């Protein structure tokens, strides 16, 4: 089953982070300095997960203190 994928595992997708200031997407590789390409801001955010999240279309139950 593994031979069908590349020799390198699929984890080599580039990690895209979002700049905290200008919200552009930056591709940061391992051991890269953390800096936005456009504005030089040094705080990056991860993108939202691609996993599916199931939300019930009901009110969230009120939990009393």
């Amino acid at each position: 089953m593994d031979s069908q994928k590349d020799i390198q595992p699929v984890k080599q997708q580039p990690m895209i982070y979002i700049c905290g200031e200008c919200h552009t997407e930056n591709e940061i590789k391992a051991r890269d300095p953390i800096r936005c390409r456009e504005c030089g801001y040094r705080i990056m955010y991860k993108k939202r997960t691609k996993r599916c999240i199931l939300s019930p279309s009901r009110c969230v139950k009120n939990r009393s203190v």
Partner: protein
Amino acid sequence: MAAPMSNVDEIRDRVILGEFGVKNVHTTDYPGNYPGYDDTWDLEKFKKNFRIDIVHSDENMLEFDMIGIDAAIANAFRRILLAEVPTMAIEKAFIYNNTSIIQDEILAHRLGLVPIKADPRLFEYRNPEDQEGTEIDTIQLQLKVKCTRNPRAPKDSSDPKELYLNHMVYSGDIKWLPIGNQADVFADAKIGPVHGDILLAQLRPGQELDIVMHCVKGIGKDHAKFSPVATASYRLLPEITLLQTIEGEQAEILVTFDYLILIWGHEHV
């Protein structure tokens, strides 16, 4: 026009509007309660005295008069309409992507309240243990919107309508994804939200929504989103008796007053 009723008839048949409340509301015409009256329930007598007149009927509202029936039955209809008539509504929202500022659960809650146009009689209730849903108990819908900057916006505009494309997500953006044989069975039934102009979320460039929703059959008793009516109400038919002939200018005023109620007999204010 004013025909005096005997006191007994008035107590049996009429609710009296007093200054601070309504009197004589409870049903008293049980068999044996009034000597000289035969109050045994008889189907033929009921059929003879009962009538339904439809006053107004359009796409969004139905108003009808039920004449010859106890208020308790009318109330029962009202309660059943609110709580036990089934409809289809969104129950599960599978959120694949939501980068808008509306949180997942808030968005899912709003989606649940969107009315869905699908005949619930053609569907079955879902089994409680079933997580997947089959074609006979589930409708699958999809909402997929991405907001982008409008390349053709005028230079110094500040109107979001010109600057962005798809920045408002309406219920009309919800599409139906037929499962199994639904495409054939409901080919002409155009399943989807009833109204296309319900604003669900606002987006800015770069934000997107990618949600798959499952609709199931349910009743209002379970969750208010399943209630088919905006509301259902009833009122007793008012009896307006003119005590004297009205003429001239007063007659004109009387005609334009829809809700003038003259209190009959001894309950004058």
